[in-house]
């Protein structure tokens, strides 16, 4: 398999462990303050401020603390975390170690989705090398009292385990069903202990911020979304792959970079994201405008948007944990609606009802998976309604 990386990535330029070396000279609140100044937000899609998570975790009471790295990347169209782990595992583990130093954790866990099981051996060897170099395990240099080690847990094939509380349930040996929040993992996470959960990319950026300083990061991107971010770009374009962008770039810039022409729509944020039509390609990817996940899929003119909506909904129908009513039953009804549209049996009034239902799913589902499940469908209906309607009628078979 070929590498997915494109261009010069910051991760390739940062010398591993300079960030950690810097961090161990700082006080734990000092590390948190440095991150706060950088404005780094979680790179998994939620966009929660990293420093705030760490502060809450450090302030929470509990026996022990955990650092969990979420490599569940199951979002269709997302592969940047895979590329980061393959190319820059050092930075990820370094970031976890910095987080441990900041919140006072002694155990880290890398949750690696089963589909990435082929990387496990490589990950183990990186960890072993770090232990050998004294960067993990007992008494990390410069900080006599600081013990931290990382173990790898292999997933078992459930997308919803990428949701942080479902991931914790998994790690405790149960069905990976999301928990009710609050309490949040920063207060009561793995086995009841305060826990910081970030995805792979976030930890890698933590290392970079500590290596190059908060000001460097803060000056990139936009005011609301500082810094750089990796995107997996795939679909109907000439140069799919993993790209690094300063946040605040426009979709047209992106399409030019990846070599996409005659584009019907761009899905920003994977299955849980939304479809952007050509009329909005001037919009920018930043918290202020279009919130970002890591996946961007380009759909060319020959694609049928009804198929696209159906594919995304089938994904959620299958991957819903089945716990709460809106997500379990609602996504199924939306998919029924797509089938009815396809068979020319969906009156316009029913489509409106489905959109109302989509809104309820968004508002009432228990976790982020359910809340984002109708997004793709809703955005496709709002921008491509004409294309969806007026299909030839099929009698029921």
């Amino acid at each position, binding site marked *: 398999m070929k590498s997915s990386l494109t261009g010069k990535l910051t991760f390739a330029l940062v010398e591993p462990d300079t960030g950690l070396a810097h961090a161990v000279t700082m006080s734990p609140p000092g590390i948190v303050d440095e991150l706060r100044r950088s404005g780094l937000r979680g790179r998994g899609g939620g966009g929660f401020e990293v420093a705030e998570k760490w502060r809450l975790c450090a302030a929470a009471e509990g026996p022990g603390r955990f650092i969990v790295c979420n490599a569940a990347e199951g979002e269709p169209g997302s592969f940047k*975390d895979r590329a980061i782990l393959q190319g820059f595992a050092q930075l990820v583990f370094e970031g976890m170690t910095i987080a441990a130093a900041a919140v006072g954790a002694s155990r880290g866990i890398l949750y690696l989705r089963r*589909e990435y099981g*082929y990387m496990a051996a490589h990950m183990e060897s990186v960890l072993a090398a770090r232990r050998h170099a004294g960067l993990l395990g007992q008494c990390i240099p410069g900080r006599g009292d600081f013990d931290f080690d990382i173990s790898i847990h292999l997933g078992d*094939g*459930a997308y919803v385990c990428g949701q942080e509380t479902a991931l914790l349930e998994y790690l405790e040996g149960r069905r990976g069903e999301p928990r009710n929040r609050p309490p949040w993992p920063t207060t009561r996470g793995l086995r009841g202990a305060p826990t910081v959960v970030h995805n792979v990319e976030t930890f890698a950026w933590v290392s970079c911020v500590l290596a190059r300083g908060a000001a460097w990061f803060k000056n990139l991107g936009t005011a609301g979304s500082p810094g750089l971010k990796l995107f*997996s770009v*795939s*679909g109907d374009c000439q140069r799919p792959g993993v790209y690094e962008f300063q946040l605040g770039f426009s979709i047209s810039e992106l399409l030019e970079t990846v070599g996409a022409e005659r584009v019907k729509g761009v899905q920003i944020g994977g299955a849980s994201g939304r479809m952007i039509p050509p009329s909005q390609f001037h919009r920018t990817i930043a918290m202020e405008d279009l919130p970002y996940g890591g996946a961007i899929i380009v759909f060319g003119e020959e694609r049928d948007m009804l198929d696209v909506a159906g594919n995304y909904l089938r994904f959620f129908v299958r991957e819903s944990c089945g716990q709460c009513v809106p997500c379990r039953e609602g996504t199924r009804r939306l998919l029924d609606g797509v089938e009815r549209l396809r068979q020319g049996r969906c009156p316009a009034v029913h489509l409106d009802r489905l959109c109302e239902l989509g809104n309820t799913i968004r508002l009432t589902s228990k976790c982020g998976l359910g809340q984002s499940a109708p997004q793709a469908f809703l955005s496709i209906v709002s921008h491509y309604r004409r294309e969806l309607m007026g299909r030839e009628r099929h009698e029921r078979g």
Partner: protein
Amino acid sequence: MLTTERDRIGLEIEKLVRSYHNDCGALIAILQEVQRRYRHVSQYAMQVIADALDVHPAQVFSVVSYYRFLSTTPRGRFVIQLSDCIAHDAVERAAVARQLENDLGIRFGETTVDGLFSLEHTGCIGMCDQGPVVSVNGRIHTQFTADRVGALLRDCLGGGDMVAAPGRD
């Protein structure tokens, strides 16, 4: 004195559970290991695990039923998975799927009668830019085409280097 195959497996599993200090937090790790060794988690195995961890057998069954990589019936020695990621070319993928079914004589979701091959769909496996993607026992084959199916299956049977060792996943 061992009397049956089942007793032997029971003892092996008990030993495995003991190696995790009979901690029910390790349930999934235990199930993964059982799945790896025996290619499925049998009803008997689930009960042995439940007994050793002091949880209800239905709870173990519930966990097994939740995760795609655990199964209660034996899967083939070679588990062939085809990613249905939306970013891939649908036409090429459909051709690969048909050729796999044709060569093996089974449909997706089935296992060959000789217990050698299982054919499954899987969600996106993070190779969206290099589809279609086939994985055999966890080993990834990118930009896969229908004409490579024959060689892939021959490699499985001949122990070639296109596939990982059986039982690994």
